[in-house]
């Protein structure tokens, strides 16, 4: 009986993997994030200049210093009201003037736009950007590459 339930669990697990892969292909067809380079993530520390709690995407406008210390303006695309509300975000989570740290996947074309992977507020709380946007691959506190 135990062997049977283990077998069933394994079967369900395989199905989940297959479904997730299949559905990822579907997600790509729905709305692609391929313009962003998820394999080359960056950590940015900066000041919010505008926060748009809107659909089809939420946007953070951010002034962040580059490694040479020069301030550069970034447009950060986040998921949307539906996904982020279900993750606990609220319309007033950010406001102009807030200092934040983010991990992003920058645009492949080199323009200062990016897809959010993770947000850290000044109180240290960390917020994801939902399943379709995918997880961060670098540590939001240190910028070090994460395992796996």
């Amino acid at each position, binding site marked *: 009986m135990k062997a049977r339930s283990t077998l069933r669990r394994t079967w*369900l*697990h395989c*199905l*989940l993997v*297959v*479904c*997730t892969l*299949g*559905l*990822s292909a*579907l*997600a*790509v*067809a*729905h*709305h*692609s994030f*391929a*313009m962003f*380079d998820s394999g080359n993530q960056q950590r940015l520390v900066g000041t919010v200049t*505008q926060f*748009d709690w*809107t*659909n*089809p*995407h939420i*946007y953070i*406008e951010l002034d962040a210093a580059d490694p040479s210390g020069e301030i550069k*303006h970034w*447009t950060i*695309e986040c998921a*949307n*009201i*539906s*996904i982020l*509300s*279900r993750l606990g975000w609220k319309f007033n989570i950010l406001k102009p003037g807030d200092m934040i740290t983010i991990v992003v996947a920058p*645009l*492949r074309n080199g*323009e*200062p*736009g990016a897809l959010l992977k993770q947000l850290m507020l000044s109180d240290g709380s960390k917020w994801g950007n*939902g*399943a*379709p946007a995918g997880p961060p691959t670098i540590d939001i506190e240190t910028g070090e590459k994460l395992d796996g």
Partner: protein
Amino acid sequence: MAKHKKHLLPLTVAFSVLSTLVAIAAEPARIDGKWFAYPGQVDPLQLTIEPPPPIPEPPLKPEYLAQWRALRAEIQAAEQRGEPIASGYTHCIPDGMPTMMQGMFPMEVLESEGQVTIIQEAYQQVRRIYLDDEQQPWEEAEPRFWGHSVARWEGDTLVVDTVGIKENVMFRNVPHSPAMRISERIRLIDDMHMVDEVTVTDPEYLTGPWQWTWMYARNPDYKLYEYVCENNREYADPETGEARLRLFGE
């Protein structure tokens, strides 16, 4: 006579209780409520029961199948290059049928007298299914995003027939003619799960029925969010058709 009347009262009560019970038993199981796509892609759910098998390739006629496969390959190659081809979503165009039945976000099913209404949170899509109504011939059906749906209850299964889908409203980029027909069998598999068995037929494009099953998990506490595509900063490059992001101030 008075004695007989005395016996009639309990009989009347018993009859009325019995007819109420019969009416309840005959009442189809209610599908109304808030439903998440299961196992879900945008809001992945814990796997509790076996999910449906993957959707098969459409049984397109050979000439259309070759074109469709080539398009899929082109879309995939563009993705891999990091130059995604703009889709309907880039222009804030809603799914339409049948895609909205497994749209991006949760959906709400409302049962009312003579009608079942389905609201998909993404793009606030609304589909109205008229019960026990006559379907119009597809030739007469105005092409729409969600078409024209009529249904009847067969026991605990809502059997829905839909015609009149606009030709540019496609599921998985599969082409179709105005004669496309979508048949659905929607039913509860337990209190918390629902299935929609979909069959698409199209004499012009398909060699036979294209069938798959979608599943849903109930979330009674969920309240749908409003969705208005008011701040769309993505656009299709007029030269390449590539999806792009408009930066602040552009």
